């Protein structure tokens, strides 16, 4: 469904993506792991054209998009099929939870308001926030905000959702509620590309895992073998350092 081919990106002297390739099949959950600064966020942002990659190719549903050459209408068509969940939620601060979910439908898709609100309420219900529809982001906890952000992503019926560390800005006790929603989406067959540090989530939910380091894919493959028998020494070293860090498991205090 989504294929990323040889994506390159540099910020000035710093080469952040040195030719990254990966593919996401329909209905799959692909987890991207990697140390801080390895280029995971940049990769996701380049995929959704929030940054313009310097080279490479994106193929979505068989249609090819070349970063840099893609026109505004191409980018709009690409984004129509995708959604993005940010690390720091980025809910529209001047809109209620419900308005956050319906905004894209009403403004970008020209969905009639009544229909949009119907969809919006259904999405809020899905993430367990029906009772918070009229709250502003400033009146919601981080976990609730991120769940609204997921509802907003779902509202436009995307073919794939890109998640950039959706739980890493959250207090430990709020991480579970967001991961639970994502787990449910995975079970329903939503296609997801998830940058995460939550090893247990990746282990139990991901179908495929991509391990990135210094702007390159070091190792990629089905989740089972990836965690059981990592091929690369660098993957093993990384898994050692991050396992034991907070996860879905209860935290001993």
């Amino acid at each position, binding site marked *: 469904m989504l294929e990323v081919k040889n994506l390159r990106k540099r910020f000035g002297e710093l080469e952040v993506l040195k030719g990254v390739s990966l593919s996401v099949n329909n209905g799959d959950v692909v987890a991207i792991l990697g140390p801080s600064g390895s280029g995971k966020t940049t990769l996701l942002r380049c995929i959704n054209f929030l940054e313009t990659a310097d080279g490479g190719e994106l193929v979505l549903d068989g249609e090819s998009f070349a970063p840099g050459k893609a026109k505004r209408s191409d980018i*709009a068509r690409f984004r129509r099929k995708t959604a*993005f969940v940010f690390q720091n939620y980025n809910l529209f*601060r001047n809109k209620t939870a419900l308005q956050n979910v319906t905004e894209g439908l009403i403004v970008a898709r020209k969905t009639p308001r009544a229909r949009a609100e119907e969809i919006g309420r259904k999405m809020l219900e899905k993430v367990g926030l029906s009772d918070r529809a009229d709250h502003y982001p400033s009146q919601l906890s981080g976990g609730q905000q991120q769940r609204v952000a997921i509802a907003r992503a779902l509202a436009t019926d995307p073919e794939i959702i890109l998640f950039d560390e959706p739980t890493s800005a959250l207090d430990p006790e709020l991480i579970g509620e967001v991961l639970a929603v994502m787990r449910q989406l995975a079970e329903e067959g939503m296609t997801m590309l998830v940058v995460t540090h939550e090893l247990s989530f990746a282990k139990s939910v991901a179908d495929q895992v991509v391990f990135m380091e210094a702007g390159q894919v070091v190792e990629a493959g089905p989740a089972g073998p990836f965690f059981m028998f990592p091929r690369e020494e660098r993957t093993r070293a990384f898994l050692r350092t991050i396992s034991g860090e907070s996860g879905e498991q209860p935290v001993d205090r």
Partner: protein
Amino acid sequence: MSERLWNILVDSFGKILLPGLTMTIPLTVIAFSFAMVIAIAVALVQYANIRVLKQIARFYIWVIRGTPLLVQLYVIFYGLPGVGIVLDPFPAAVIVFSINEGAYCAETMRAALESVPVGQLEAGYCVGMSYLQVMRRIVLPQAFRTAFPPLSNSLIAMVKDTSLAANITVMEMFMATQRIVASTYEPLALYVEVGLIYLLFSTVLTKVQRIGEKRLAHYGAQKE
């Protein structure tokens, strides 16, 4: 207080308040409205980084903020007739106050626009909105929320600054007071009186500002 002075004060109250209601307030309301239009346009061309327009905007702000309001009034009202442009006092005042206030409010609006996190724009793009849609529905409303207190400040300052229009013969509150002083020789009491009327106007506006801020409380509140 002598009875004569008291009578003068009572008698003059209406004579000062009336031009306040027919001149000071209309001048403020009309000029501030134009100023807001100028401010938004000038702030937006800078925010959107539109090349030539941005330079024009910077030049405009540089000139207006760098010269006294009084000088600007004189140039427009007493200077322009020299090149054949004769304006009535009131329209001349509206033009000068709009252009002057527009420059200051443009800077307020620009700062407010820049304070909206870029993530708000990106989230808008990701749900499929265009630049203009994001600006209109997400960025501008939040910028207004941020700019509301300083803009209210500017409005209150402007009410008082309109007294400078007396210099170009606009018959507003201050000029009306000067007239009464000229015939009664009670400058202290009368200038204090007009000062109190300005204070009354400012107090009402401050109250309105409070109410406005309360209503906007959640609207783009800066908590994340």
